[in-house]
Every structure is written in C-alpha cells, then in structure tokens.
C-alpha cells in the first residue's frame, strides 16, 4: 500500500505517557495544590487536547481545563507545558518526553487546575490601554471606504494577529514581579493602534497610556515574551520601537 510509505510511524509499540497535572481547586477550602499523575497510552497524532480529554472522559471527570477552538487560534488553552507557556491544543505529545508536566499559567487568577481567568485580565488591559480606534468623525457606511496602502494593511494585520493567550505574560519575568506591568501584549496592542492611520491618537496620547514603569519603560527586555509567543509576533522589535518613540516624548515639554 502506497499510503504506508507516507506514514511516519514504524512498528514500535505506542508509548505509555505519564501526564502530571497540577491540581488545585480554589473553590474548595480543603484543596492543596499537588501534582496528580495520569497514565495514558499515546496515539498517533495525539495532542495535549486529545490526551486531556481522554483523561477527563476515562479517568477523572473533575479535571478542569479550557479548550475552545482546539485549532491554535483562540488562545484559550495556554498553560505551562514542562514549565514553558504554550498552547496545549497544538502541542503534539510526540514532541515531549514520556513524563509531561502541565501547570496553569502563572500570574492570572486561577479558576481550577489548568483553567485560569485570562479573559478578565485582557478586558482590563483593553480598558486601560483603550485598545480601539479613536476617531471622532462619524462612520460613513454608504460611501467608498478610505483607501489604505496594501502593505500598511498587512503590517497592521501582522500585529493584529495576537490571540490574547497570555503566554507572553507568563513568559515575562517582569510581569511575574510587578502585577501592574502591561506586558508585551499590551505594548503590542499600542504598537498596532499607533501604526493604524485610522486611529487619531498622537504619541502624546499613547505616552499617557504607557509612558511609565508599568508601561514601556518597565520592560526589561527579557524577551521571554518574544520567544514563547505562539503567533510569533515581532514583540521585541515592536517594544523597542515604542520605547524609542516614547523616549522622544519624554524630552518634549
């Protein structure tokens, strides 16, 4: 059969995986955080999404975790996979060892086990950084749209791709120490709106939002954000760029 040629798996027996989940239910006063191991048999193309659901269906219905799209585009399933933030739904078990340790993203409010409240933090950040197009002119919906350079549109999309997964916050040492730090995601949002000509805000306005040590000047260039971002956003260059622009404002009166 030709199809066999196209499969990678040989005749090796499937691996037994030990998946250790950091369990804790804050709603239960008796609960203490602990690592709970689950043994499952690895299957072809198994992702952590499949593995965790199999555990929940067959072994322990009480494990909490969040998946929505299970396709790596919604940002719900970020967790610490062997200590590194990543999207569980698109992580293949075959790329990991036989013992896999899963823990909830640090920094965010814990809901239970692997489930954290990133949404609440993201909404707070959106309000704080006012992440929407600021344009006082009423929207004209019957007339031709304002033209935009095709390259600019693509450049904006490049920064718009953030899925608010929170990996960059979990990967940032500064954020671990200082709760009010806006993080790479916040800075990237500002960079995105700054780039957008439809947003009428000036650098002075942006300085009001991120011109302090909880904003761009708080970033210590640790680059954890850049290295863990599952969408591979150019966080490093964007933060550097913003820092230059905001520094210029610092010398205006």
């Amino acid at each position, binding site marked *: 059969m030709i199809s066999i040629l196209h499969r990678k798996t040989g005749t090796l027996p499937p691996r037994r995986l030990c998946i250790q989940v950091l369990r804790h239910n804050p709603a239960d006063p008796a609960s203490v955080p602990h690592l709970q191991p689950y043994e499952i048999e690895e299957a072809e193309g198994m992702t952590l999404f499949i593995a965790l659901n199999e555990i929940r269906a067959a072994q322990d219905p009480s494990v909490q975790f969040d998946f929505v799209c299970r396709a790596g585009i919604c940002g719900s399933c970020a967790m*610490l996979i062997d*200590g*590194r933030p990543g999207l569980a739904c698109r992580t293949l078990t075959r790329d990991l060892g036989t013992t896999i340790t899963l823990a909830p993203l*640090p920094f965010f409010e814990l809901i239970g086990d692997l489930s954290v409240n990133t949404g609440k933090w993201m909404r707070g950040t959106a309000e704080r950084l*006012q992440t*929407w*197009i*600021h*344009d*006082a002119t*009423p929207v004209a919906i019957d007339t031709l749209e304002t033209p935009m350079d095709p390259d600019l549109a693509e450049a904006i999309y490049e920064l718009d791709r953030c899925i608010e997964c929170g990996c960059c916050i979990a*990967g940032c*040492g500064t954020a*671990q*120490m*200082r709760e009010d730090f806006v993080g790479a995601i916040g800075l990237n949002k500002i960079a995105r709106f700054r780039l957008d000509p439809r947003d009428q*805000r000036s650098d002075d*306005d942006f*300085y*009001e*939002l991120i*011109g*302090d*040590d909880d*904003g761009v*000047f708080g*970033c*210590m*260039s*640790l*680059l*954890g954000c*850049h*290295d863990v971002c599952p969408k591979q956003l*150019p966080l*490093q*260059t964007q933060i*550097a*760029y913003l*820092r*230059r622009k*905001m*520094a210029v*404002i*610092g*010398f*205006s*009166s």
Partner: protein
Amino acid sequence: MALIDNNGSHELLDADASGQLVIHAPTTTPARQPRRKSRWPARLDMLQSASGLFLAVFLMAHMFFVSTILISHDAFYTVARFFEGAYFLGKPQPLLVSGVVIVILVIFITHAWLAMRKFPAGYRQYRAFMQHKNSLRHSDTSLWWLQIWTGFALFFMATIHLYDMLMQPALIGPYESADRVWTGNMWPLYLLLLLAAELHASIGLYRLAIKWGWFAAKQPNRYRRRLRWAKHAISAFYITLGLVTLAAYVDLGRAHADRAGERYVPTQQSAPQHPGKH
C-alpha cells in the same frame, strides 16, 4: 415593580444628524485628558541606558590603558602620567585623576540607583522571579539575573576600587600598581571585579541594543543570534585581556615585593619630574 435599573444609561444620550440616538462613546472624546503623565520615566530610562553605556565604554577604554603594562612599564607609566595631564600642564596633577574618578563615581552611583529600581522589591518578587526563571529556563531571562547579581557585586567591589583611585591618584604606575595588586593583596578583588564588570558590561551592551532596537535586521531572530555572538566575543576578549594583564601585575608585584613602595622611574627621564614625597 421597578425592576429595571436605567441609572446612567440615558444621561449620555444625544441625537446625531440622522436623528438617531447615539451615546457619546469614549471613541468620540479625546483620550483620557486630566493630569498629564510625568515625563520622568522616559528620561530616567534613557539616563539608565546612557549611564550604563558610558560606564561600559569607559570600562573598555580603561582596560586598554591598564593593559599597556603588557607593552612595557614605560608605556603604562606614560599613560598614567598622561592622565595626570603631565603633557599639557607641564607637570602631573594627580588631582585631575581624582576629578575623573569623582565624575565616574557620580555616574556610577546614578546608574546603580537607576538600575536598582529594577531589582526585585522584596522577597515576594524575588521568589516569583526565581520560580519563573527556573521553570522557564530561558537564556535572556537568565542573563538578566546574572546582570542583577554582577551589578550588585560591582556596587561593592567597584566602590572599593574607586575609593582607592580617589584617595591615591598619584599611586598609579608600574610598580605602584603592581605593589597594590600583590603586596596590597588586591588581586583577589581585582579578579572578581574583572569577571563581574566584564560580564555585566557585555550583557548590558547586548541588552541595550535589544532594548532600543539598535542594529536591527529584518529578521529579529537572526539579529539576536548575531548580537549574542558579539556579546560573547566582547566578554571573552576583555576577560582574557584582563586576566593576562592581572597576571602581569601579579608577576611584577611578586618580583617587586621586597622593594614594595618604591616608585617607578622611567627608563628615559623624559617624563616630567614627579612632585611626590619620594
């Protein structure tokens, strides 16, 4: 029964040209107006980088001056006298060196003060960072940790060294320095100071480039690989240079130990007469 709570939702109302009711959304008002944000965070951040850059450049230059001992005793002697202004003022003025030391000291303290803001404040932050660093095992995060510690160490070690230079500006010369290094038992301090200073400075320069986006290339990751390579190269070069130099001082210091305290007299009496006590 008043179950509906409409408080607030109507006072925002207004009618637009089409007769439609609209809310004055934040969209139509300029971004938060009230108190203007202080410009100082920007300035302090720049100052931190500028002071760091200055110190790093100074350190590199200083390493070259100090290492002239490797060329010859006279070379080092000449450099030392040069900084005392012997060649413009007619005679060496060690106070000039003290002046420079004071300037460096001020910048140094400024830098340390600015950088200290970034230290973990308190045990909670310290633990949070440690835990994070250990679980993430991420090179740049670990580098920062190294920088914190080397900076912290420099704070003490460099202060001692600077204090020496401030108080005894005249005692810089092949024998004088070598005696200080060996007979004065300064070499262990210098060894540590060398490692700390060079690591701290090269990491600092690397991070300066990242922080401000200097020498940026199209592909951020390739750019970073290059920078990291440059950083390693700088560390390696200066540490080697420093070690060899230190070894030279130790050598000379041991050889000169029985005559410790004797001032160096250049082979050709070309340099102006030293006004020291000798």
